[in-house]
């Protein structure tokens, strides 16, 4: 089975290049804002127990499964999920499994690029000295809500709205990079952006860890206590460690964070790994990209965000916004930088690194769909980029225009960014463990491996990971789905956002069906 079009095959230029590209795809706002907030909210050190279990039982095994399925598909000439699944399942209808792996990254991109533009706008505001809004927390909330248009629909798209300039720049950067291709665009950018963002984070970390006790009249607000607020296992009154761990919510949140953070179930790793060569290692490369992501999450995000906020604001404001990525990142931290010596410099570095992290993620969301348009419909790179830009910008326009309380963004994030990735990850695990088969799958992973697979991997990926996923997904649906379904019916913005998702899904099904017929004809001619 081969791709119809004999396009010039693309490969990664180096091992480190692909690792940095995959790590760049994974490292994003979730590492620096969402993880610290969740850990602080769900018992600090207690949260880390389900978190590490989810990494071992879900993240790393699925990551290897995705890498191997992707490389296998690449060997058959496919770089997008529909073709890759068709090759992996050895079934002529297998390409339909790939629809979700196109829908998820495309829809997530449509709102993620808007958040990316916020980061650029904040970095610019710090660089030009416009973020000195004083010690009043309300001023920062006002700045954010005005910038993103959260007060009314159409506020962000009104004439003169500054966010549109940053959004246009972000979109242009993304499409310019993917147009340049795997080596010249994505890999070249990630080789610069990843070390740069880690360097920026290390400078901010050094500043935070040397803050001491900035206000001697508040000796309890020290860096040491800030680290304690983040890392101490906090057992709630009347609870024990075991009763806290018996609460499904903490498992749900920890697993959700691992998913969101490592980019499994996004359809990205499958596409990226299809650009590997036949015998390129995937065991060590997959582990390296995962550990790079975890380094950014635990050692940078975990040591910067909460301790910095604690030192200047104390525990109460953090507890108020701990579960909110945007609240912590765009309300609380600017207030912290305001009180920090040389705060404008560190504020700029912080939002610049968030912007870089966001770009390395958003380009990875476009590549799977671009690859599909090229190999599934036969469009040239230029036309495929144009068509993708049209659809992606339409989605972004929905998010930006229906910006009241960010309802449209939240709806897309829930139905695609959360429900979609659970479903896709389950599909991948089942294809790897039960359709491809663990024997063939493990043999595929071991090809060219620079590291031994841990014993028990086959058992975990076949039985443990799918069971764990199904249980967590059932809990997730039980806890959240009804409320969000009611929102989709009752709130106009949510209904429009869900309508857009459904329209794109239908369009993708039709395109995938057409691609399947092309590949079928090609196979018939080949036999």
């Amino acid at each position, binding site marked *: 089975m081969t791709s119809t079009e004999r396009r010039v095959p693309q490969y990664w230029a180096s091992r480190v290049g692909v690792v940095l590209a995959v790590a760049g795809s994974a490292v994003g706002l979730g590492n620096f804002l969402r993880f610290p907030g969740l850990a602080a909210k769900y018992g600090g050190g207690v949260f880390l127990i389900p978190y590490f279990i989810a990494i071992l039982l879900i993240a790393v095994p699925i990551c290897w499964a995705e890498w191997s399925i992707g490389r296998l598909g690449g060997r058959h000439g496919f770089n997008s999920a529909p073709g890759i699944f068709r090759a992996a399942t050895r079934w002529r209808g297998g390409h339909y499994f790939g629809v979700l792996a196109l829908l998820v990254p495309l829809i997530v991109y449509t709102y993620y690029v808007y958040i990316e533009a916020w980061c650029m706008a904040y970095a610019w505001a710090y660089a030009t000295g416009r973020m000195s809004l004083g010690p009043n927390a309300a001023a920062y909330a006002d700045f954010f809500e005005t910038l993103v248009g959260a007060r009314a629909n159409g506020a962000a798209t009104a004439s003169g709205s500054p966010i549109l300039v940053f959004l246009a720049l972000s979109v242009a950067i993304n499409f310019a990079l993917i147009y340049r291709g795997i080596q010249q665009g994505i890999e070249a950018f990630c080789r610069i952006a990843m070390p740069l963002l880690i360097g920026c984070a290390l400078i901010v970390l050094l500043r935070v860890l040397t803050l001491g006790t900035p206000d001697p009249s508040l000796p309890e607000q020290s860096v040491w206590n800030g680290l304690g607020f983040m*890392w101490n296992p906090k057992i709630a009154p009347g609870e024990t460690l075991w009763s806290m761990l018996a609460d499904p919510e903490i498992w749900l949140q920890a697993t959700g964070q691992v998913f969101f953070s490592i980019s499994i179930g996004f359809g990205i790793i499958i596409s990226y790994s299809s650009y590997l060569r036949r015998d390129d290692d995937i065991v060590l490369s997959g*582990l390296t990209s995962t550990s790079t992501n975890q380094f950014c999450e635990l050692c940078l995000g975990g040591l910067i965000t909460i301790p910095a906020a604690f030192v200047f604001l104390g525990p109460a404001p953090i507890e108020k916004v701990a579960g909110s990525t945007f609240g912590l990142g765009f309300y609380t931290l600017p207030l912290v930088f305001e009180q920090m010596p040389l705060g404008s410099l560190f504020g700029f570095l912080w939002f610049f690194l968030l912007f870089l992290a966001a770009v390395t993620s958003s380009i990875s969301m476009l590549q799977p769909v671009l690859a599909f348009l090229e190999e599934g419909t036969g469009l040239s790179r230029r036309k495929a980029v144009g068509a993708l830009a049209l659809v992606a910008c339409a989605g972004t326009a929905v998010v930006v225009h229906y910006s009241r309380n960010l309802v449209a963004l939240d709806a897309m994030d829930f139905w695609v960014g959360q429900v979609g990735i659970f479903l896709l990850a389950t599909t991948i695990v089942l294809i790897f463990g039960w359709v491809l088969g663990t024997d063939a799958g493990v043999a595929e992973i071991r090809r060219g491996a620079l590291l031994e697979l841990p014993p028990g991997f086959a058992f975990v990926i076949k039985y443990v990971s799918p069971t764990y996923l199904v249980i967590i997904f059932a809990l997730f649906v039980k806890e959240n789905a009804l409320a969000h379904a009611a929102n989709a019916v009752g709130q106009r913005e949510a209904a429009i956002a869900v309508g857009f998702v459904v329209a794109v899904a239908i369009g993708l099904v039709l395109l995938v069906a057409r691609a399947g017929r092309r590949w079928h004809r090609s196979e018939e001619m080949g036999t």
Partner: protein
Amino acid sequence: MTALGCLFMIVSCGTVTGLTIFCYVRLLSARAPSADDAASKP
């Protein structure tokens, strides 16, 4: 910060940092794919 919190932090960050360094050292010290490897791709 409690002793247990300190332990959680050191073990978590230490393990992840150590693993990351180990992985990059192994990755960079492994033989680079040769032109023959590249040519073997169908």
